[in-house]
């Protein structure tokens, strides 16, 4: 049986991996973008990003000083047995990761802005637990930086405004400009509820960036024709991918959430049994 200690240590190792090594699909997308850019400033910016990724991996240090707010997705198999509080074990992992990786202590009280220095507080780390088939526990960490989170947006469109969904998504990216560290990855959640759409948008960001369908590719093309470019300094590459998740919604509503992710699309998973 998996122990409290095993879960806590897995969380530490997942944060270490996510913060210091970018997933291969994202690196490849950045390399492709580097080849396609002919604007000198844009090329230099992507070049610096690629050198930074190498430096972080080589030195085993976080690729970005904003190590994000700790977010954890847990998928627990219905035949997986647990004799401790999973939430407590994940929290312990975040506490240790903050010291050991190290993570920047980003979590503060929203009003007093007081910083406990541990990345632990009410509702933080943000933990989502889904019960799935099987007998394993899958843990995924997704540290989310504020530069990109701050330019994300959600809108409750009217059911008659289906034709405005694309416009809203592209408008959010346009308004974000260079602030979220482009080239970005655009996570979109369409449907369910106010909170559900936001969760779908965030979960979309966990997908492989090459797994786009026709609708997503079409959106990516439009977003890249905006010309925001790497760092917001102009160029062809505003986004590396657009990933959309949809869910059914109430007949009277049409929620659309756009969660912007910087080029540092950090994520790491492990399966425990």
């Amino acid at each position: 049986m998996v122990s409290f200690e095993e879960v806590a240590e897995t969380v530490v190792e997942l944060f270490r991996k996510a913060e210091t090594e970018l997933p291969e699909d994202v690196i490849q997308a950045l390399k492709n973008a580097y080849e396609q850019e002919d604007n000198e400033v844009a090329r230099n910016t992507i070049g610096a990003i690629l050198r930074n990724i190498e430096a972080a991996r080589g030195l085993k240090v976080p690729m970005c000083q904003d190590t994000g707010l700790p977010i954890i997705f847990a998928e627990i198999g219905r035949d997986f047995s647990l004799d401790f509080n999973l939430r407590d074990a994940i929290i312990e992992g975040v506490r240790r990761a903050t010291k050991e990786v190290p993570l920047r202590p980003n979590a503060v009280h929203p009003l007093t802005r007081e910083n406990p220095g541990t990345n632990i507080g009410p509702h933080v780390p943000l933990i989502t637990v889904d019960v799935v088939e099987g007998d394993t526990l899958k843990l995924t960490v997704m540290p989310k930086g504020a530069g990109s989170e701050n330019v994300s947006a959600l809108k409750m469109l009217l059911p008659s405004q289906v034709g405005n969904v694309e416009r809203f998504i592209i408008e959010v990216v346009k308004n974000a400009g260079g602030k979220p560290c482009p080239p970005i990855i655009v996570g979109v959640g369409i449907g369910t509820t106010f909170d559900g759409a936001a969760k779908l948008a965030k979960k979309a960001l966990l997908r492989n960036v090459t797994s786009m369908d026709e609708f997503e590719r079409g959106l990516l093309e439009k977003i890249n024709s905006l010309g925001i470019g790497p760092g917001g300094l102009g160029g062809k590459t505003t986004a590396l991918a657009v990933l959309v998740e949809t869910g059914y919604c109430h007949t009277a509503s049409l929620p659309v959430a756009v969660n912007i992710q910087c080029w540092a699309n950090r994520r790491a998973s492990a399966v425990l049994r």
Partner: protein
Amino acid sequence: MAEHWLKTPIGKNEILNLKVGDVVYITGTMITARDEAHVRMLEYFDEGRELPFRIEDVVIYHCGPIIVEDGGKYRTISAGPTTSARMNPLTPRVLEKVDRMVIVGKGGMNEDVVNALKGKGVYLAYTGGAGALAAQTVKTVRDVYWKDLGMPEAAWVFEVENFGPCIVGIDSRGNSLYKEVEKKVEENFRKILSQP
């Protein structure tokens, strides 16, 4: 585009000489300051107190680094730029109090800052998220002010060597690369919307 290798304190003529698109490398002293440090600077000004550091002689870096304490010494782990736009409402008031200023950040700043920089300062863009790369150029952490604000918000004093490449995003003559890009992006946005 021209390349400049600058050493702090950076002279006023050197600052006025920089043009948008130029590449800049910095050697010398940089002080990190983000939202909370800016608010505190303004409190000092309002109370008529002297800041504990001279803004004119250093480079203000929009950055919340990861620092570890090793045997009483500070070491920088990762130190890339933070989103400068958050300092848009605060920076013009700081600029009123100084004769010259060099700011490094990412993502650009607004028209108010472009106007406030006229004749006295520049805004340099460093690659967003390049924290590991930036930390390599930090040779020592000489000091820290306002540590009570917490690690990301405190004012850390870095001695850097060849920090860069930075791109001049806003120069002292009212030019802004971001403004130019934004204009084109607005035009492209309208074109995209008019497509069937």
